[in-house]
């Protein structure tokens, strides 16, 4: 008998990698009004694997085994539902599933490698519909395409399983009502539609990257899923857009530094204090590669510029030798694309390095009255930093304290407390 642990590990790994693709294919077979049916088949295939492998051992090609099992279960369901109204067989793509003369071949056609990839991406585009809120988009992606359990999704969003179930329900209802047909968009729409997909991926990445989570495992999971989704876009000719390469580069640069951001004691370490030897050179090299590949076409996206900034940081030999001027250029370009107060705020940190605290205090006035700022912890943290450098300790402490109240992240809070401690001692 195969060891239970070994089977569990193989299955978990496979499940994360393949369940989303299997779900996407099955949704194509059953229709978006039958997402649960698709998810149930995948779940059933997994249970069969667990039971069969326990006695017969893990097959030579576990992935093929899982796919074949899902395929056979889908055939069973089609045969059973042939005369019910659950599945819409009037659809030309499904018509040939109704006769035994064509069922098996039609079914096999659905499971061909190139179709699987297309269906998977098609599903990603389908759930990144502008009518679906971005948190519902990511919830659905994590659950249905990345094989997260409801519990894991809930932990990713720091919310209850109940909330996640409701979000999933709403998204499925939307699919059902509108009979959304998942597919990779036509060339004339691909740019706009990919933007929504990329922002969902980046949001997922940031959810993992930002230190809101104490749970390291969940964070790493989110990062690797975001990278994996972006990579699947890059693996398909139709979705190899400059912005996709740029986002991939950006995320790799961030990921390369992740281990140096948190100390062994679980505290956040600032960029200036990070041990650059810990940065993952392989990921930085990969990122640079993608950044080079992103330089085609006419679009200069925010991802290009953010990646260019991250590249400057990643390749500077020390904090002191960072090319702040170049970075400032990129920030200025960013602001011309999107006059985002948060970008402006981050830009002011560059001004602080280049021109000192007096100068930055002047520029930051520009966004002082922006309504996001009053509740944004980073704004207050930066003001704390500025006042600390201006040798105004009381004011600095005041700002830091406000920042502590405004962030949920325990890591950020403890970093800010450390700064206060540094001033008071």
């Amino acid at each position: 008998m195969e060891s239970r642990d070994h089977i569990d590990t193989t299955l978990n790994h496979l499940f994360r990698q393949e369940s989303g693709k299997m779900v996407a294919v099955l949704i194509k077979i059953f229709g978006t009004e039958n997402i649960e049916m698709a998810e149930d088949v995948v779940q059933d295939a997994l249970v069969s694997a667990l039971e069969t492998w326990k006695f017969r051992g893990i097959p030579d090609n576990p992935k093929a085994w899982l796919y074949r099992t899902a395929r056979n279960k889908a055939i069973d369901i089609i045969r059973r539902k042939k005369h019910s109204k659950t599945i819409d067989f009037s659809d030309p793509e499904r018509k040939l599933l109704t006769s035994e003369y064509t069922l098996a071949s039609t079914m096999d056609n659905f499971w061909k490698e190139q179709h699987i990839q297309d269906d998977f991406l098609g599903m990603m585009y389908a759930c990144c519909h502008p009518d679906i809120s971005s948190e519902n988009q990511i919830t659905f992606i994590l659950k249905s395409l990345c094989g997260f359990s409801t519990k894991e999704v809930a932990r990713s969003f720091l919310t209850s399983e109940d909330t996640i179930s409701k979000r999933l329900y709403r998204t499925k209802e939307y699919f059902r009502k509108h009979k959304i047909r998942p597919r990779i968009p036509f060339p004339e729409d691909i740019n706009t539609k990919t933007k929504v997909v990329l922002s969902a991926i980046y949001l997922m990445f940031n959810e993992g990257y930002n230190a809101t989570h104490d749970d390291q495992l969940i964070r790493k999971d989110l990062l690797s899923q975001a990278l994996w989704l972006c990579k699947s876009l890059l693996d398909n000719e139709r979705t190899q857009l400059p912005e996709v390469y740029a986002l991939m580069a950006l995320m790799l640069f961030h990921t390369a530094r992740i281990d140096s951001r948190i100390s062994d004691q679980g505290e956040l370490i600032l960029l200036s204090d990070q041990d650059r030897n810990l940065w993952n050179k392989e990921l930085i090299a990969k990122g640079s590669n993608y950044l080079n590949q992103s330089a085609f076409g006419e679009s200069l996206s925010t991802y290009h510029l953010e990646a260019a900034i991250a590249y400057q940081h990643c390749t500077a030999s020390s904090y002191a030798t960072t090319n702040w001027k170049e970075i400032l250029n990129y920030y200025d370009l960013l602001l011309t694309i999107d006059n985002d107060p948060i970008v402006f705020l981050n830009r002011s940190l560059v001004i602080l390095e280049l021109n000192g605290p007096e100068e930055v205090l002047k520029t930051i006035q520009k966004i002082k009255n922006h309504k996001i700022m009053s509740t944004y912890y980073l704004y207050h943290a930066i003001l704390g930093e500025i006042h600390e450098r201006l040798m105004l300790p009381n004011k600095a402490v005041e700002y830091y304290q406000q920042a502590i109240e405004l962030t949920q992240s325990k890591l950020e809070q403890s970093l800010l407390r450390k700064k206060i401690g540094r001033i008071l001692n």
Partner: protein
Amino acid sequence: MKQFMFLFKGGDDVWDAKSEEEQGAHMEKWMQWIGQMAEQEKYVGGERLYPAVKTIHPGGKKVTDRSFAEAKELVGGYITVMAETLEEATEMAKGCPGLQWESSVEVREVWPDEA
């Protein structure tokens, strides 16, 4: 457009003698043949039948099993398609892959014709 039925007869012995791979490849041809008609929106539907047979004879009392002599006449399945005329339907039926495996195809118009 009128509806026609293609009745596939015989060929079971050939089918049984083939390997699973050969059968799979053969069904792939059926898929292409029917798929093409479906693309032209001429395919309606169809079913495949198992070879076990019981015949109830006139009067309703006598029931017999399939006899060997009838093997060539045994209906193995049917599909319904749309065509303008019996001649057009017959042309379509000539593409049936079963013809290569010793099946025959009987083409019949479905009654009544929906005018």
